[in-house]
């Protein structure tokens, strides 16, 4: 069983979701490696990153270890913390050999983000 890892370095906001009630999106990530127990970022069960157009969220050493793949999902929770009311923004699945770089993730509700990452091994 070979483990791989990728580091998500930043999220850049090209545009926010139209559905946001507050100013900007309240962004958080859910990272699920190999279909297992997901982790939430920001961690420690806590808040989100308020993002407006032009903002960069620099992630502090977010290294994701996985065997086959790790699915990173961007969410916007706006004012209500009920997960049933969270807004799905987009997602990206990283696999071995993904390489380093960035990827633009957008949806038809106006959300447009660029996720940057470094493939470690």
């Amino acid at each position, binding site marked *: 069983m070979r483990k791989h890892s990728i580091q998500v370095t930043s999220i850049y906001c090209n545009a926010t979701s139209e559905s946001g009630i507050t100013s900007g999106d309240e962004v958080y990530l859910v990272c699920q490696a*190999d279909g297992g*127990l997901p982790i939430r970022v920001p961690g420690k069960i806590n808040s989100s990153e308020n993002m407006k157009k032009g903002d960069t969220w620099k992630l502090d050493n977010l290294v994701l270890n996985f065997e*086959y*793949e790790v*699915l990173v999902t961007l969410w916007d929770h706006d004012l209500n913390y009920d997960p049933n009311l969270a*807004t*799905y923004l987009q997602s990206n*699945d990283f*696999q071995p050999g993904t390489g380093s770089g960035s990827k633009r993730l957008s949806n038809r509700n106006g959300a447009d983000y660029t996720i940057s990452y470094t493939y470690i091994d």
Partner: protein
Amino acid sequence: MNDTLKIQLANYVSAYRSMPSPAPAERPSNPVLTENEKKVFMEAEKAWAAYSSSPEGKKELAAVENMDLPELRAYVAGLPDKPVFSKLIKWIRSLDLPDSSFSIGLYVEAELVIGFSGTLGVAVGVGNSAGAQSCEFLSVSLEVGLQAGALAGVQFGLWNQAPAELEGNATGVELDLGIEFEMSGAFYFNTSGLRGATLTLGVGVEDGIAVVECYTFILGDQGADPYIKPVVQPRKSNFLIIESLKCVHPSNDGAGDENEIYFIFQADGDTAYPYPTYDYFSMKEGDTWQCGRSVWFNSSVAVTVYDEDGTSGNDVVGTFSISLSQLKLGTSVTFKSTKDYSSGFDKVEYTINVKLIAQNVS
């Protein structure tokens, strides 16, 4: 603990981890139990000893190891009706207590990437809430260094809230209950102040909780669309990724030319998982959603794609059946819906791309 229960509990842990952290609560001074509260815990211990050593208790506790969450919940919900606990609760209700709930719960520890513990319990009204409706609850906490995978014990609690008000965050701190038998005691508090105290049997005092953050879910009638959506999958022999879903032609649902798409995937007829776990992804004709949803399976995966329509129920816009024999390791395969959902001028069509990424995983 069986894997099914572990996965089911992990979904609650996952939901807990996606919540914002509560405001910091000021730790109250250690509570001192009243004589009646001490008596409650001592009599509860005796009742548990009587039940767990009875032929009925032995048989039922042996069966617990193989129960899934709904079965375990039904078992726990039935505990207050057993004669030994029914008598205990009747007696507790006759006491002058400052508390509003008394709970009986099974305490389990598990590990799935991280360690967590859970107490699946039933709370009944006592004191001023003696007439209140009982409720079932699940408390979860994240812990490291657990002796994983065991039914660790039984937990009794006395709470300041009525049963239906037990939901929410709390911090637990180890507490000497002043009772002389092997058990671990704790008290819980949050921003509203002291919540209650627990006694856990079957866990050595040295394994006590020290300090722990936990969240209590009230388990309502969640029906077919549970509040907590499943997300953690059990490992199986094969692993595929639903790489993308393409809208060849959307369904005309009367709300424009855009569909609000989510899908349900089900491996080998087991748990049905939604994706996105909550919400949807809007799609128009020609759009491709790079959803990247991985799925563990043994022989087959069923995928049903829905257009969420808040006014008239959700419409199925594609049904896919994926068998291991149709896949080749590392190669993307396009699947068409097994059923044509077009009608009249509405030529709805979606396709999915699937890639097998691991096979015969031990």
